């Protein structure tokens, strides 16, 4: 909404510069975006919030100005009237009064259509409207002045002498004054003559019945339409007009007739002509809205300071409210029909606050009566933060990816069946069509982005919400690509076991006991992979090597390891951690013996370890793999493994014979069970 200062002065003189007025308006809730100079005049560019349709008019803004400056508004008093009874008649039928509580149609005959007087045409231009001709400009002038949208039809182009306010029929055609043809659905509120739609109610008039230079007789429409009906039509046909903007936000039904009279007056003044009959259909609920009780105690409760009653009366009075005394020092406030946003006491308190300014309110911290308890949400946030800190210390960089993805990206990241993913019905582009079912896709995008910029050694993580099978989960994603270490002492490529170690490192710090890793079947994303079952039987952790075909589809030229961890289970484990009693370490150091053998490479280290533990009994405390060898000097399909075994007794020490007998036993067991060979 634009506010030309010269036009404002027709109703109230603010006695302030444009800049000073802009500041006052902004600090009272009428946001001034900028102060413009148009055709040599100061014009304020305003952003009016959707609850204040009354400020979409010069008169509404004049009332605001008056309340801020203590001056009086002089409203124009329209004196022109239509004659009663005689003359050509127009009938009106309204199909649904809920959608159109009042409709008036006024005939004006014998107009001379010409440009509007320059001063007024300029005023319209300053408001961002075009000047068209004296009749149309008169309706637009009243729209900006009062906030009431009006429409003028060429009476002679209307078929029949009846206006129908009805829903459109499916397939009906309508060409707007913008020249675009619309095929209507079966629920658009329209204005029709006896044959066809001539306007989409409250949105736009039709081409065929618009007022042109040849128009002699005019039908002036002033009405009120249902905001929802107008909003639907505006969205459906994508027609944003000054009229629809105001009807959507609510037009004062009680001001319709006054607006019509004002437009009549201007048309007669600018285009001549004779007023004809006024037709009207109204079913307005006579609801002088119930007065609101305003209690001084409540004002103080909400604002933290009292406001004196005379001040309350002055502020509300200038804004157009009626204020009377009520019981117990309270005030009874009646709300003007143009302020439908004010419905309760809170709203009145806001009026006092915004006009007097927030500066008046003291700045206080609330007394700390509130007891801070450690709750679930806080504990969860703290746990997530610990995981983040931990990963940062391990050298990982945290990333944040958009949670919405394209179908293509998703299909390329191991989600060939898009029907399993959740789709957004109104994406702005194909890039935002799907909700992420995991963090892999975003991770691939981030890896690619960095590789393109020659950052080849990547350790990335993201913590975020994913959505699959109708369930939202908090997930940690980890990616390793390029060398794990690359310095002058050591160079080592990343391996799946590095990532496994990192996952164990992070989760054990959260109180997770040793995890039961299992080989997992290859997926569309991962080739070699391992998983840990979660608390409820689902997969809690999955990690592996991203498949070559996925990397190829993404054009990622280096290996990538990826892990995803459903954090919920592990954070639960942390919160359920029980206090424990510390043990005294054994008095004597443990005894270490190594065992090395050659074994079929299909036999898993996990089962070898389990067999050794079973054979070694309670005094075998730890079995640790310290070497693996394949290749040269090794038969095909075999590998050499070396383990360190630690023995420990709670009391006393071992004799050499005891240890030797345990080692021999373990050696025999391994040979029998797995056919290992000792060299």
């Amino acid at each position, binding site marked *: 909404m634009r506010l030309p200062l010269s036009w404002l002065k027709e109703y109230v003189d603010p006695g302030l510069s444009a800049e000073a007025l802009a500041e006052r308006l902004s600090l009272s809730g009428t946001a001034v975006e900028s102060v413009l100079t148009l055709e040599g005049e100061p014009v304020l560019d305003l952003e009016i919030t959707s609850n204040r349709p009354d400020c979409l008019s010069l008169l509404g803004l004049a009332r605001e100005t008056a309340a801020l400056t203590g001056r009086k508004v002089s409203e124009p008093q329209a004196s022109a009237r239509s004659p009663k009874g005689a003359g050509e008649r127009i009938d009106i039928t309204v199909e649904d009064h809920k959608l159109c509580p009042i409709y008036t149609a006024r005939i004006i005959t014998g107009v001379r259509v010409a440009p509007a007087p320059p001063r007024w045409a300029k005023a319209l231009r300053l408001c961002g409207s075009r000047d068209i001709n004296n009749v149309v400009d008169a309706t637009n002038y009243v729209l900006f002045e009062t906030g009431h949208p009006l429409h003028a039809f060429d009476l002679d182009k209307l078929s029949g002498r009846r206006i129908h306010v009805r829903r459109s029929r499916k397939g009906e055609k309508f060409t707007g004054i913008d020249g675009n043809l619309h095929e209507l659905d079966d629920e658009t509120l329209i204005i029709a003559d006896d044959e066809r739609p001539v306007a989409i109610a409250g949105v736009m008039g039709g081409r065929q019945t618009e007022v042109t230079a040849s128009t002699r007789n005019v039908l002036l429409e002033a009405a009120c339409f249902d905001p929802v009906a107008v909003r639907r039509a505006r969205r459906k046909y994508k027609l944003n007009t000054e009229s629809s903007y105001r009807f959507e936000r609510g037009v004062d039904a009680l001001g319709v007739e006054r607006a019509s009279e004002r437009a009549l007056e201007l048309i007669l003044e600018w285009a001549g002509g004779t007023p004809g009959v006024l037709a009207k259909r109204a079913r307005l609920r006579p609801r002088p809205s119930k007065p609101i009780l305003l209690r001084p105690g409540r004002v103080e409760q909400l604002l933290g300071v009292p406001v004196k009653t005379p001040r309350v009366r002055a502020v509300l009075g200038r804004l157009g409210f009626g204020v009377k005394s009520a019981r117990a020092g309270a005030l009874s406030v009646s709300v003007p029909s143009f302020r439908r946003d004010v419905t309760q006491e*809170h709203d009145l308190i806001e009026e006092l606050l915004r006009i007097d300014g927030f500066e008046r309110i003291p700045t206080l911290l609330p007394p700390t009566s509130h007891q801070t308890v450690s709750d679930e949400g806080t504990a969860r946030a703290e746990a997530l933060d610990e995981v983040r800190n931990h990963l940062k210390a391990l050298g990982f960089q945290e990333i944040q990816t958009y*949670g919405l993805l394209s179908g293509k990206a998703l299909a390329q990241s191991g989600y060939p069946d898009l029907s399993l993913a959740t789709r957004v019905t109104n994406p702005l582009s194909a890039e935002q069509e799907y909700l992420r079912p995991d963090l892999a896709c975003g991770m691939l995008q981030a890896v690619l*982005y960095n590789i393109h910029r020659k950052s080849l050694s990547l350790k*990335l993580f993201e913590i*975020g919400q994913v959505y699959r099978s109708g369930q939202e989960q908090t997930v940690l994603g980890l990616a390793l690509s390029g060398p794990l270490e690359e310095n002058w002492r050591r160079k080592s490529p990343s391996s799946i076991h590095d990532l496994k170690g990192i996952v164990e490192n992070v989760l054990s710090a959260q109180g997770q006991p040793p995890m039961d890793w299992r080989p997992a079947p290859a997926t569309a994303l991962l080739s070699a992979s391992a998983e840990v079952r979660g608390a409820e039987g689902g997969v809690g952790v999955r990690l592996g090597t991203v498949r070559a075909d996925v990397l190829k589809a993404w054009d990622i030229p280096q290996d990538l390891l990826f892990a995803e961890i459903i954090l919920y289970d592990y954070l639960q484990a942390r919160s359920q951690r029980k206090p424990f009693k510390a043990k005294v370490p054994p008095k004597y150091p443990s005894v270490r013996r190594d065992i090395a053998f050659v074994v079929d490479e299909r036999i898993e280290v996990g089962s070898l370890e389990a067999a050794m533990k079973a054979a070694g009994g309670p005094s075998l405390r730890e079995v640790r793999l310290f070497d693996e060898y394949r290749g040269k000097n090794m038969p095909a399909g075999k590998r050499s493994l070396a383990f360190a075994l630690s023995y420990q007794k709670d009391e006393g020490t071992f004799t050499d014979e005891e240890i030797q007998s345990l080692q021999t036993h373990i050696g025999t067991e391994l040979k029998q069970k797995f056919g290992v060979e000792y060299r």
Partner: protein
Amino acid sequence: MIEALKQLEQQAQQEASTLSDPGRLQETKLKYLGRKGLFASVSARIGEVSAQDKPLAGQEMNRVKRELERIFAEAERALSGPSSSSAAGVDVTMPGTFPPCGSLHPLTQVVREISSIFRGLGYSIADGPEVESEYYNFEALNIPLDHPARDGFDTFYLQDGKLLRSQTSTVQIRVMEKSRPPIKVIAPGRVFRPDATDATHSFVFHQLEGLFIDRGVSFAHLKGTLFTFAQSFFGPGTRIRFRPSFFPFTEPSAEMDIWSDKRGGWLEVLGSGMVHPNVLRKAGIDPEKYTGFAFGVGVERMAMMKYGVEDIRQFYENDVRFLRQFS
């Protein structure tokens, strides 16, 4: 003579240890060890020593000479500085080989900083789902269907009739449903809006919501709380102002601005207001007994102001060269 040698040794030790200039050190070294130096002149007295004592004196001569050489070599090393360690075969200037530290995302850091300010004021942390129902995102927040107020909250809808929350205010409702006043929580989280992406708009961004409901909570407390926040986050002495605004779920509503010397103007920082009585009533809280305030901070906006980031998209590009700065 043996006494003289010992004295010489002591003297040299003292002198060498006090020298800090390499030139002076060389002069001193010559003074002791030069061809006509002190050591030479004392050694020349070997002729005066009895044959019986000669072997002992000879031994002492050798020992003191070695000792003097050692003293000056050490003094030279000390003066030539850090490279001294290489003499022992270790070049400590070679890079350390433990993997470097990673970094936390700037948005995480801003959320953390704001959270810790409010934790200090006694707020706990709450969260809620990103996939929400119409009820939590709109209805319960006093935003009726087909109301123009919804235009400010353009929203992504999902196939199943659910939606992606377009504001973290949804968490207000979830908290009010679960607990009774006093309620004092903040809720950081992601929100989604179908906005065309440019330098200042993103269809995914983060908000941090705050909610305080108790008996006797007034607008003065809202001002005090947000004033305290501004002083902590933007620095002491930060000037703030409140401007009336409109949010369907608060009344009165206010935007908070902070003064920027750099731009010579006020910058919009966050939206806030007293919780709307309709919202309290819907959550089963008596608005006559309890009042409260709520506020919502745009995390990206805070991060952009704090770190001088000009383009919001940088937060989601995940360029490790950008992220590394935030370690």
